[in-house]
């Protein structure tokens, strides 16, 4: 669309106009609705509280919001690809490149990762008998950094500057020589800010799990979700700084004329190494927590302890370790030579062994159990075959010479959707249905949950199974068009139908949440699923400081054994000085400062960079001289002495 404004010709794509119009209409409606429902005090509470459950909830809500946004991108992609030589709306060429870039980036960084961190926030402290995360203030900073990064990235579209170099942002395409304009600056700053939040969250989780477990809860007695969180946090601590460095170097290349990824001394492949040294562990950062969730759910809903606990933990650790040394399997076609290629092929194949151990242990956990099929368990059951299918194509891809055929085709697209949706997305859904009572005190409707599951799972397989075949028939990734002669029409057509089924299933989730909160139902109770682990021993929704008197743990699944023996969980006499939840607006200030600074860098406005930078620095100084925990800790010590 062309607008003639004061003699200047402005080109505006209709999709951006549509987005603005939609926002201008829905924005006030939402604000009105929130005011009418008197929701503002609650929102303020969640925005300033450092309580782990509330922070976890904010993580989950924003992840779901971004999930819808990135899901709409996916539907646009599928509409453009539904037939050969199609012209859907504006999504050809650059616009198509923008939507697949935002789809990928959002799904990985602003949906999958924070969704799992949100669930960790909600469940891990309760599962290990801690009163909160070790650093509640840092936790609030983390969630603000995630939301800020996500919003910066989200905003790009509204300014018609969505990133367009793919979620992998391969140099030199992502350098300013080939993609000038602010587009990919949004990518860099959005990920940089949220990545920092992820690192903080990992540090927090590591310290919490290592330091704040209830007495007697040795590491070897911990449920598997905290175990997975522990190993994941370690992986984040190794991987995310590499991304931060890579992004910084790219930013220097784009804005300050350095040449790390091109020119005489630089090399584009350096970016690929850095990106995948981060990127491959990231895949396990997404998968391991989901494994943990499934282990807990399968055990609880089979009424049996986890089969082969020790090997389950060992497998988690081994996957984490091997995950750090397989990155170059994303680069088999770069020409690293057959030695490097076969080395990384074999390390990659080795990952199949611990993963196989986990799959068989899950299956044998169910054996001789009593399998109660409710929504969380249904997702766990859907996960096993789906993930195994993604796993086996992973081994096929590991075979270096064969990968030269698969690489960058729809076969790869199918593979990673099978593993990531199979583990992370199904795992998060399972986790949300499972811990929903612990978050809100209410149960989500089981019948609607089952509808959601079946529609999502069938839609998923319809979407992604044919893509294996499209890839083998020579359809590369990231193309907005194909011809009739390519012979991939049928696969794409089925794919598009499946995608809309998945989309429809998400509407059921919205309806389910609405329905659950509309009726004034009584509380779901502390233990609605007949659980085995500590989180089900505290009231729902979990209160602040749920373990004033620490439970004393003498074996795994303590709650289960206490229930069987019809005894109370034993607990200590004194309570232990533990982190306290406070109210603070400081992270909000930091978030505003970083937004100003980021936009300064995105558009190269130096005054904004200085203003935002100074304000961010000031927030550190303010924090250094203000510790709101002091009075709370003193009060707690006094209580103990009495």
């Amino acid at each position, binding site marked *: 669309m062309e607008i003639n404004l004061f003699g200047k010709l402005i080109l505006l794509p209709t999709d951006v106009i549509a987005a603005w119009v939609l926002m201008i209409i829905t924005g006030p409606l939402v604000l009105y609705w929130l005011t009418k429902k008197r929701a503002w005090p609650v929102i303020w509470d969640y925005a300033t509280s450092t309580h782990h459950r509330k922070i976890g909830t904010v993580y989950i809500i924003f992840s779901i919001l971004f999930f819808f946004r990135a899901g709409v991108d996916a539907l646009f992609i599928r509409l453009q690809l539904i037939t050969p030589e199609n012209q859907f709306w504006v999504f050809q060429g650059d616009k198509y490149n923008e939507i697949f870039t935002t789809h990928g980036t959002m799904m990985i960084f602003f949906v999958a990762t924070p969704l799992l961190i949100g669930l960790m926030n909600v469940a891990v402290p309760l599962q290990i008998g801690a009163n909160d995360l070790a650093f509640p203030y840092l936790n609030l900073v983390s969630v603000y950094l995630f939301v800020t990064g996500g919003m910066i990235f989200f905003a790009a579209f509204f300014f018609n500057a969505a990133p367009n170099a793919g979620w992998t942002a391969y140099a030199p*395409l992502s350098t300013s020589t080939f993609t000038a304009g602010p587009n990919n600056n949004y990518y860099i700053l959005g990920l940089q800010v949220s990545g920092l939040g992820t690192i903080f969250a990992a540090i927090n989780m590591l310290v919490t799990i290592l330091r704040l477990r209830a007495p007697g809860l040795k590491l070897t007695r911990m449920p598997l979700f905290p175990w997975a969180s522990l190993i994941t946090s370690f992986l984040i601590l190794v991987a995310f700084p590499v991304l931060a460095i890579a992004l910084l170097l790219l930013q220097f290349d784009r804005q300050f004329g350095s040449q790390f990824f091109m020119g005489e001394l630089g090399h584009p492949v350096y970016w690929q190494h850095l990106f995948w040294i981060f990127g491959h562990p990231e895949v396990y950062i997404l998968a391991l927590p989901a494994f943990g969730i499934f282990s807990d759910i399968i055990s609880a809903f089979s009424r049996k302890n986890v089969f082969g606990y020790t*090997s389950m933990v060992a497998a988690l650790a081994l996957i984490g370790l091997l995950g750090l040394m397989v990155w170059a399997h994303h680069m088999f*076609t770069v020409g690293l030579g*057959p030695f490097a290629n*076969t080395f990384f092929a074999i390390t990659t194949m080795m990952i199949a062994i611990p993963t196989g151990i986990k799959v068989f242990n899950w299956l044998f956990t169910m054996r001789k159990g*009593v399998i109660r099929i409710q929504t969380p368990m249904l997702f766990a059951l859907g996960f096993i075959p789906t993930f195994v299918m993604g796993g086996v194509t992973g081994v096929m891809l590991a075979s270096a010479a064969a990968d030269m055929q698969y690489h*960058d085709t729809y076969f790869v697209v199918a593979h990673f959707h099978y593993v990531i949706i199979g583990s992370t997305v199904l795992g998060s859904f399972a986790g949300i249905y499972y811990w929903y009572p612990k978050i809100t005190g209410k149960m989500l409707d089981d019948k609607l949950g089952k509808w959601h599951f079946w529609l999502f799972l069938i839609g998923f397989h319809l979407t992604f199974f044919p893509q294996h075949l499209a890839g083998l028939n020579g359809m590369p990734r990231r193309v907005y068009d194909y011809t009739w002669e390519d012979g991939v029409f049928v696969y794409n057509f089925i794919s598009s139908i499946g995608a809309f089924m998945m989309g429809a299933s998400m509407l059921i989730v919205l309806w389910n949440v609405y329905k659950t909160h509309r009726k004034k139902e009584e509380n779901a109770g502390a233990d609605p699923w007949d659980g085995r682990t500590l989180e089900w021993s505290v009231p729902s929704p979990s209160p602040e400081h749920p373990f004033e008197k620490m439970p004393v743990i003498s074996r795994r699944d303590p709650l289960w054994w206490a229930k069987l023996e019809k005894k109370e969980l034993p607990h200590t006499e004194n309570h232990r000085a533990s982190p306290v939840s406070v109210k603070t607006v400081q992270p909000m200030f930091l978030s505003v400062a970083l937004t100003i600074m980021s936009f300064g860098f995105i558009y190269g406005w130096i005054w904004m960079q200085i203003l935002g930078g100074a304000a961010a620095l000031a927030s550190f100084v303010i924090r250094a001289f203000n510790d709101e925990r002091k009075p709370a800790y003193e009060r707690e010590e006094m209580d103990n002495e009495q």
Partner: protein
Amino acid sequence: MKKLAMIPILLILSGCNLRVLDPKSQTASDQAFLIYLSFGIMMFVVLVVALLFITFTVKYRETEKNRHDIPKHEEGNRTLEIIWTVFPIILLIGLAVPTVMITYDVSYIGASSDDNALHVNVTGEQFRWTFEYENGEKTHKTLVLPKDREVIFHLTSKDVIHSFWVPKLAGKIDVLPGEETRLKVTPEETGTYQGKCAEYCGTLHADMRFETKVIKQAEFQTWLSKK
């Protein structure tokens, strides 16, 4: 409705000659062999898992009868765990050995085995290919190759990274700026095959296609001298 009914039939028909599995050179045959081999091994794994999965979920589902049963506590089973650790290792060795061999086979490492090899310089740029033959002739849309003669591609890019891919002849090789990558292939059947850019390279990445024509050696000589 009739069209809809055709869909499953079309699906099956088109499954029979997927380009990657319809190789026209030794390189692509080797790669197709690896694909079939890994697929076979992996289907075995999927079958075992599916069998156990279906058996367990059907057999141990909650029913009216077992609703209040408390299953026996079970720490694990060493024999079983050793089986599902060792057995996959054996399967993977079965895949790893041919992978290593074929990866070395299909990679261009230094010297060519054939003195008579044809050298073609390939240049990728946004958004077209340039194929330059030894006598300096250039083409853009069509790559013409002789049958049964080894071809060595010397690939480089003028701008961003591209990837050179003719699915029926060989797996892809990336085309990098400021560097030369190489690919060797010996076409074994005459015909016209699709070629594509497989590495996302910008606005018109989808249109960066070419045709590969494999013709008889004598025809190739006349074609090259006529140009």
